[in-house]
């Protein structure tokens, strides 16, 4: 720590002694950082100290929750009626769509059964509230207002009306932490809806930006292409929208193409999201032939 030494004291022995606690604590925190980085001891420690952490999160989320509640209480009768009409209209449209899709899904399931595949279409979802809390601003994470007691498990997938939001990484008794698709630690196997091209979408740490590196130059990919989860890896169920390609450019070596994408999910912290329970029997493991071999996880 020579750069922090500043001016050396008159008595070198004394200043060296003064630096001893500093060195001790710095070494201690550096060791902790190393262990957490390598083995992820942080999750276990956080789970143990949930008694301290969860009230803090609850408190920090309080102002946002009260303003939302106030807003809901005060919003005018007229606007509620308008909202109601709009929502009812949307519901009718979606219901009509779902009826049509159900028929297609049935047909699809029959065809799959004929092929002997085990792509399941059983999805169980439930609504989870997001706690309005800013964690470390350099990582993209959310706190969910549900935990082990509510049946949340690590690895469950979060979606909203737009598409895939992320996945649960840490579960406490009443709270859980979710990693968003835009976190630099996150990756999701995707498939281009139009051409079937497969790739992996990495988070970048920026709120509205995903990265798809290492795409062959000959690949069929255009700006505006829709990305869906491919279901490979078994963590994300297949067919959920992930994003839209916004830009294509050659990488530094000019051998591959790097694609930028905008996430499809609404990452501006809506108040509620859907948690997907992946039923084990119905778990989607990619191509039908994957029944025998275990597919290594593509998630982080």
């Amino acid at each position: 720590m020579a750069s922090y030494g500043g001016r050396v004291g008159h008595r070198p022995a004394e200043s060296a002694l003064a630096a001893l606690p500093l060195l001790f604590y710095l070494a201690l925190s550096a060791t902790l950082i190393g262990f957490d980085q390598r083995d992820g001891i942080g999750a276990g420690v956080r789970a143990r100290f949930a008694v301290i952490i969860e009230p803090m999160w609850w408190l920090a989320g309080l102002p946002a929750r009260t303003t939302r509640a106030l807003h809901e209480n005060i919003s005018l009768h007229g606007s509620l009626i308008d909202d109601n009409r709009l929502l009812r209209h949307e519901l009718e449209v979606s219901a009509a769509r779902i009826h049509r899709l159900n028929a297609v899904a049935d047909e699809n399931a029959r065809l799959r059964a004929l092929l002997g595949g085990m792509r399941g279409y059983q999805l169980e979802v439930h609504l989870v509230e997001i706690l309005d809390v800013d964690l470390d601003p350099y990582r993209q994470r959310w706190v969910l207002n549900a935990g082990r007691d509510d049946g949340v498990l690590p690895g469950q997938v979060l979606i909203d009306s737009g598409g895939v939001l992320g996945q649960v990484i840490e579960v406490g008794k009443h709270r859980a932490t979710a990693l968003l698709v835009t976190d630099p630690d996150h990756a999701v196997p995707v498939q281009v809806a139009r051409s079937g091209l497969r790739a992996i979408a990495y988070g970048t740490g920026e709120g509205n930006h995903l990265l798809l590196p290492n795409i062959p130059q000959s690949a069929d990919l255009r700006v505006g292409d829709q990305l869906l989860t491919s279901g490979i890896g078994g963590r994300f169920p297949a067919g959920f929208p992930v994003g839209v390609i916004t830009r294509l450019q050659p990488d530094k070596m000019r051998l591959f193409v790097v694609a930028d994408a905008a996430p499809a999910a609404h990452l501006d912290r809506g108040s509620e999201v859907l948690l997907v329970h992946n039923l084990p029997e119905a778990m989607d493991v990619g191509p039908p032939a994957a029944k025998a071999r275990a597919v290594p996880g593509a998630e982080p």
Partner: protein
Amino acid sequence: MIRAPTSWLVYGSFALGLLFAILPLPAAVAPMRPFLLAMLMAYWSMEVPNKIGIGSAFIVGLLADLVTATLLGEHAFRLVVLVFLVQRFRARLRFFPLWQQALAVGLLLGNDQVLVVIIHWLSGAASLPWLSMLSPVLAMLLWPWLYVLLDMARLRARER
């Protein structure tokens, strides 16, 4: 000699600092969030050095790591360095005029940002958004107010 009311003031201010670290801000300003906990740490280690030292910086830092879900030890490391620097230059910092003190705090927090960049770089985490470079500047502008506020609170606590 530190009295009981002041020590409650210390704990209370740290609890508020922790809370401020996770308080939801609009996404546009969130990266500029001043590191209030570090400012409080600087103030208390300057004013009550026999009570608040490197050890308390470490503990408060660990709490901050738990609450903000960062790597365990990241905040602890940053606060330990900060308190060490404050202790080192305490004699001078205390008798600086307020604006000069604010400048020094800005520098300390700038150094803190450098530490964050290094820790993130070593641990392979994301680089910081450039807006976070404004966080020390904001802290510098806030420092005089915080200083006066805490001084008044301490006077009150002592009179009681």
